[in-house]
């Protein structure tokens, strides 16, 4: 078959667009961890292939996906990939990529950023570009002494690789060992003292002190009580169950400050009786979290109906326990706050989402039909896409509804999927007629909805490039501003 030049270009553009949408969608939800339906190895193989493929074919766009709101795991992975393979780049390409990489490193949590850079070391790559980027990254760290304590091994390995000069006493501290001398820097001195004195121990970051306490056989309850003031909000949230087990009371958390997904995960970790007892508090926390989330990323919707999956498969895996259900809960709260008129249908039906537990089969068809009967502007389906009662019913309903009952497109249907399906190289779809969007955190729902038009396949490559360019501007602008305090 002979194609004209235009047709060939159009075909190439369409393929590029589809590839990129696939990749972005995968990057929104995949974390390389085990899921309910596939193991960690399959997930890793699948996402690694996607990264290799997109980097090899569309390098410029690949770098720009850093700005598209992909999750931390994939952002770190993209940074590693970009830094480990830059031999054939032009100087201006390097400069553009470099700015994105620095911004991305700044946006990542510290351990992930360090790990991304050490990933380059594992590939055996060491060049001027990497050293410059590491230098910039370390200069921008708010407190390098703190990093030298908390991420001691990582910082040390990174310096070992790049041969950069560390300020003050840090070089000696990391490489000559803390036993060598006394330190003028208070934090380093505390670390040294903590090896001998209990008081100094409780002035260290929790993760560092925890190891020392275990080595010194300090009672866990005593340790938790004394280290409580040093805990970060996330550590506090994580240690709730431990504290309850050990009978430590001083570890109260301020639910009003927790992020939406974290809050949902915490709520799901409570027994139904506890949730019932603390209903008012938890409900208020959900509303507050949703409002705060909308303040950061505004979303104004009309009449919305959600179909939310709480079937047994939302149990997730030991790596991500109950995450799918938590995201359904988060999306529920977020949509309620963002829409003028909101209805939720759970499957299997539940009267009280706050008491939801993962249980039962996935019947998306019935709730979806109920949802469409109310003629809303937007239907959001949150599910892992494995509907089995009956199989494929939801996709069929969407297809026929679009083709026969709503050709004008008054109702938009969007499928949000928190689970990466390894064999499909993306979140599992309900059918060709519904855009499926990966989602790692309920807070990213506005980004996902903005991306829905691309996932639906309605828009061209030019529009996708425009979208990415705009995101890049915002991303670089945000990175230039002083980093906000890390929330929960």
């Amino acid at each position, binding site marked *: 078959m002979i194609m004209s030049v235009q047709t060939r270009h159009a075909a190439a553009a369409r393929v590029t667009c589809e590839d990129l949408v696939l990749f972005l969608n995968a990057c929104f939800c995949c974390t390389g961890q085990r899921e*309910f339906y596939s193991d960690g190895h399959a997930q890793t193989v699948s996402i690694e292939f996607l990264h290799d493929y997109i980097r090899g074919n569309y390098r410029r766009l690949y770098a720009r996906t850093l700005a598209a709101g992909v999750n931390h795991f994939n952002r770190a992975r993209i940074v590693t990939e970009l830094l480990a393979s830059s031999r054939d780049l032009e100087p201006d390409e390097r400069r553009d990529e470099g700015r994105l990489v620095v911004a991305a490193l700044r946006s990542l949590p510290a351990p992930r950023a360090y790990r991304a850079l050490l990933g380059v070391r594992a590939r055996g790559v060491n060049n001027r570009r990497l050293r410059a980027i590491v230098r910039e990254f370390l200069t921008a760290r708010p407190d390098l002494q703190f990093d030298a304590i908390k991420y001691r091994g990582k910082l040390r390995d990174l310096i070992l690789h790049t041969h950069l000069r560390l300020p003050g006493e840090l070089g000696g501290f990391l490489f000559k060992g803390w036993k060598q001398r006394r330190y003028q820097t208070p934090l380093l001195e505390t670390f040294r003292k903590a090896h001998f004195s209990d008081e100094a121990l409780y002035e260290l970051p929790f993760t560092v002190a925890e190891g020392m306490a275990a080595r010194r056989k300090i009672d866990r309850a005593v340790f938790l009580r004394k280290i409580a003031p040093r805990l970060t909000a996330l550590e506090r949230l994580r240690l709730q169950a431990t504290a309850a087990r050990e009978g430590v009371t001083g570890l109260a958390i301020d639910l009003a400050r927790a992020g939406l997904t974290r809050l949902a995960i915490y709520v799901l970790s409570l027994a139904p009786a506890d949730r019932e007892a603390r209903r008012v508090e938890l409900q208020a926390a959900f509303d507050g979290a949703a409002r705060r989330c909308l303040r950061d990323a505004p979303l104004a919707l009309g009449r919305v109906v959600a179909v939310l999956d709480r*079937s047994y498969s939302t149990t997730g895996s030991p790596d991500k326990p109950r995450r799918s259900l938590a995201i359904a809960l988060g999306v529920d709260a977020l949509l309620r706050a963002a829409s003028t008129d909101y209805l939720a249908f759970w499957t299997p039906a539940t009267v009280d989402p706050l008491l939801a537990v993962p249980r039962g*089969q996935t019947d998306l068809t019935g709730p979806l039909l109920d949802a469409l009967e109310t003629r809303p502007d937007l239907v959001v389906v949150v599910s892992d896409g494995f509907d089995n*009662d009956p*199989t494929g019913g939801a996709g069929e309903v969407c*297809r026929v509804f679009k083709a026969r009952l709503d050709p004008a497109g008054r109702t938009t249907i969007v499928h949000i999927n928190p689970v990466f399906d390894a064999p499909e190289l993306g979140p599992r779809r309900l059918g060709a007629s519904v855009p499926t969007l990966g989602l790692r955190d309920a807070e990213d729902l506005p980004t996902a909805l903005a991306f829905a038009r691309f996932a639906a396949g309605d828009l061209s490559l030019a529009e996708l490039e425009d979208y990415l360019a705009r995101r890049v501007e915002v991303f670089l602008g945000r990175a230039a501003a002083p980093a906000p305090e890390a929330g929960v």
Partner: protein
Amino acid sequence: MKFDETTQGLGLRGLQVAPAQAFGAVRLVPLLKEHVREDLRLGTHSFRDRRPHAVGLRGQADAPDVAYCSYIPHAYVLDWTDDGAAVAARGAALTDKRLGLRDVGGVRVLHRMVRREEPGALRFLPLHLAMEGFLSLHFGGPDVAWSEYSRQALSHGLSPRREGSVLGVYVQGLEDAVRMFEVHERQVGCLVFVADALAAMVVFPHPDDYRALHRSLVRDFFGELVYQYAILYDDVPAHRVAVREAEIADLADLRAAITRARADWTAFTAEMAAGVLRESLRWQTIHRAGPFRLRRFMSALRPDEDNHIGEAIVRDSGELEYCKTFRLSAAQVRRAYLLEKLAQNLWDLARTAEALGVTVPALLVRLRNAGFAYLFKEHVLKNLPPGTV
């Protein structure tokens, strides 16, 4: 074993078939109960110590003259009330003594396959009831002392008679399928298909029992055919619903079309399980407890069809309260078929051969290949052609 009744299949009285869930080559079909009753409950008693167990089938438990030896992961304990009042599920709260367990030289001996532990509680060994029935088929050996039969066959019957089966965890993909299966709210049972061949049907009395025992599906045993199918086939197509969009004018139509498609698949699934649900079965009652009968069954043993053995608890009204089936492999069916034909013809080789439409040497080859050479004197089997006939 003496059969006391023949019926056309198990039927699905009181049960509904729900849409299948397919994982790889395994397809699990939920069976839901229409009206859940509380007067019969089932729990497991697991034999945690990994010592060999023997089941005394006759006489004293510690001096069994016939014993049944197998890997048995657990026993079921059945609790019931006669007047339909609810019973509390107590699971394995029975002591060894009440279970009839005794130690004999390092082997734990269970007293009988089915044993009434106390009024309103019955212990039995799942699936082994059916398997024992199958193994004991014409176990006594030749009734007439024809000269071809060996002395051993005449004095000890078919002993030792053995059959092989495969533990559920070794059936490729079954463990994953059982893990990923989403249990319905009113579910009491499940049809297990491997490469779309019916491997087993499982029914328990109560949805809570099913939920508790769902994972024990991988501790049941399956036939050799099921094991091979699981290796040979990677995938079965999902039962996806499809709607013809030209027929749809509004949402009510769409809803009706989906309901119809679902019902079609349900009927189709029941059709796939016809081997147990519709073909004729022969029954034997083992125990009667209140309004319930514990029975085992066996299909007609036709070598060219799929054959199942199983056990069931049936309420007087005909509702199925408990059921487990086992799909016999072709070789197992062949063995049972030959034994049955021999028994029908009073173990006379000439008459049997005539009934089967073959010559006597050909019948002997078939018996030898089926593993029954030990029943005959050596000279009878001499000069038979090698291979199959």
